């Protein structure tokens, strides 16, 4: 889908913009050097050390003051309430949140009302995004009708309409034959199948990870094996069918080991992790704090560490925010009865930088999982600093400290597990197709 451009600062955009005095970081090429970047007609026209101080004649100049200029982030798992649950989040508010978080491309999940399982709905969401969103919006369409896991959606037609990949949303396809056929059929179209991995029989009624914490606070728990079982099955089915498969959000070492082995066997398999599972664990739930109720559930610290190591080793391909806006009505309930989900677009980069500041991962591999890796996975031309690539950019200060205040977040829902958290590193500017859609300190537009 073409990026939303028309919402730029009304008519004042010069054709040529140059970013001087930047620290250019491009995970795709491994570049990390002082330099500058030239944008012409929404495209990266030139970049490198020679542009560090020298602005071409007539160009609009932005002095980066030595901060990091990187490709804008690509978040391939964003839930919105558009259509059907607009009180939680619309495409517009999600895109504002994304812009504030340095995310220039979001992939919207099909878990809407109605479910995005028809061409008309893909058209509708695309039109809404064109009219209202200030970042690029792509659609992950439903793999099965109504996300029920029983009948295949029109994968070919949905893809032709613009769906970028196919997912069963927040649920797994329980029926193995259905899953096999979906992988087999999707393969004919080269379509990517993205799957939430959770055995719904094992997880029925569970409110959190099983173990001492759940036992102590009296909540029904689910063992992490409920995730690994589905990952193992899916890998077998990929082996059988050759379909392209992406496990959307892994949360434990055992699941990751299955994916790693599948990769060793050259199967077309990738996996992702949510920022929550990289930075939080089950102890954060504390006294029944429902903002920490997510799916898959937060696991033990050992598993969090395993996920970070997997990321650093390149076994995990992408980091997602798994942004899932839920309003106060469904969160201010007893834990077991509260909705799952946490917002995360605006805090994605800052939370990820925690791992960098803790010395758990270097900046390049960290950013790789939010830029070039998702771009490759989804076949997008963005996610890289390269001549001819779209000028979707992120300017950030990796060190400046700040404290999250959920009331200041742009998302329509405020269910952030990072509320009142101390962060280090924040977004200064977000540029989509050459247009600045967010600047720190400036009020949001629209």
């Amino acid at each position, binding site marked *: 889908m073409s990026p939303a451009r028309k919402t730029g600062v009304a008519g004042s955009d010069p054709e040529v913009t140059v970013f001087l005095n930047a620290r250019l970081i491009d995970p795709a090429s491994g570049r990390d050097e002082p330099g500058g970047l030239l944008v012409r007609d929404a495209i990266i026209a030139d970049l490198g050390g020679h542009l560090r101080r020298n602005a071409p004649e007539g160009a609009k100049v932005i002095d980066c003051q030595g901060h990091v200029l990187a490709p804008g982030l690509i978040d391939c798992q964003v839930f919105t309430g558009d259509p059907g649950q607009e009180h939680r989040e619309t495409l517009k508010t999600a895109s504002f949140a994304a812009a504030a978080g340095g995310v220039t491309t979001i992939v919207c999940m099909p878990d809407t009302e109605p479910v995005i399982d028809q061409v008309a709905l893909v058209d509708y969401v695309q039109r809404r995004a064109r009219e209202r969103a200030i970042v690029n919006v792509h659609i992950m369409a439903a793999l099965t009708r109504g996300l029920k896991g029983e009948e295949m959606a029109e994968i070919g037609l949905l893809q032709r309409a613009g769906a970028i990949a196919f997912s069963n949303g927040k649920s797994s396809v329980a029926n193995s034959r259905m899953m096999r056929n979906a992988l087999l059929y999707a393969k004919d179209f080269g379509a990517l199948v993205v799957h939430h991995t959770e055995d719904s029989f094992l997880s029925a009624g569970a409110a959190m990870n099983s173990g001492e914490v759940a036992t102590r606070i009296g909540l029904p728990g689910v063992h992490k094996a409920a995730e690994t079982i589905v990952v193992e099955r899916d890998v077998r089915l990929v082996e059988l069918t050759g379909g392209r498969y992406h496990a959307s959000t892994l949360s434990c070492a055992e699941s990751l080991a299955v994916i790693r082995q599948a990769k060793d066997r050259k199967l077309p398999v990738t996996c992702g992790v949510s920022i929550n599972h990289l930075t939080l664990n089950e102890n954060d739930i504390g006294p*029944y704090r429902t903002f920490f109720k997510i799916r898959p559930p937060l696991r033990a610290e050992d598993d969090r560490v395993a996920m970070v190591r997997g990321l650093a080793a390149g076994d995990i391909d992408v980091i997602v925010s798994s942004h899932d806006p839920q309003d106060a009505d469904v969160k201010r309930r007893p834990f077991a009865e509260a909705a799952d989900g946490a917002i995360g677009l605006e805090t994605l980069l800052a939370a990820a930088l925690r791992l960098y500041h803790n010395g758990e991962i270097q900046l390049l591999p960290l950013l790789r999982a939010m830029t070039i890796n998702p771009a490759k996975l989804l076949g997008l031309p963005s996610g890289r600093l390269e001549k001819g690539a779209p000028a979707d950019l992120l300017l950030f200060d990796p060190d400046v400290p700040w404290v999250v205040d959920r009331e200041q977040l742009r998302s329509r829902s405020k269910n952030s597990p990072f509320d009142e958290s101390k962060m280090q590193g924040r977004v200064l500017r977000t540029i989509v197709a050459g247009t600045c859609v967010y600047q720190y300190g400036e009020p949001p537009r629209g």
Partner: protein
Amino acid sequence: MTPAAHASFHFPRRHLLTCEGLSAKEINSLLDLADKAAEVNRQVNKKRDILRGRTLINLFFEVSTRTQSSFELAGKRMGADVMNMNVSTSSVQKGETLIDTAMTLNAMRPDIIVVRHHAAGAVELLAQKVDCSVINAGDGAHEHPTQALLDALTIRRAKGRVSGLTVAICGDILHSRVARSNIHVLNTLGANVRVVAPSTLLPSAVERLGVEVYTDMWKGLEGCDIVMMLRLQRERMQGAYLPSTREYYHFFGLDHDKLERAKPDALIMHPGPMNRGVEIASAIADHSRSVIQDQVEMGVAVRMAVLEAVARHLPNH
């Protein structure tokens, strides 16, 4: 209360939400107070005026005959005005959330709310939203503090102590708030706690709560001072967790054969209501060493003590 007893009394809390975290001193303070209440309850005039003018609301989201009537009686004997509110599931489904209910009740300016709810943590959530004292009368599979306190009082009165005794808690530990509260209280008071259940009815990592785990009841009862049975909910009996009630009774029902493994003077306890012939043989329930009726009596006394203890932290006292 004598001045000496008053000086040693220690319960610096406005709410009673959990047993986890209570100190031995706090528990003993409540039990001492309950001992005195038990004496009053055996007199002709049982009425006291410690809570005169106070309003106590029994807010029960789950049906309960015993606990609710026990709290009602305790409140009335302490002189409070008691209102029972049974919030059936259907009215909750009409859209009023727990928080709405809490705010509505709070506006009626009660002094103490006693809450039972089917979800773990619900009572704590409610306590955050109201100005009065809140007493947990059972929240999901989390805790049921007054039950554990009345069990400890029953044991202490019968055995003279809790410390050093071996207590076997038997049955559906997985879904039991009674078991969790008892584990905390008994451990804090220095007892050796065992849990006895089939593995399907044991919560994950339960040994981390400081208990010995037995899946063989004959072994689990070996040398016990106290055999504490739990109620098995009907919906758990058929297939999902257990093959049948018959099989459960055979391996985990308390009968003479298994009871013989315990010490000759071992006490038999059950929080009620009992499923005779499922978790306990009828004759055992009525055994001379059964203290099941004492538990009911101590229930009222403990709840009077808890009401008195939290009332000390109410304003204008």
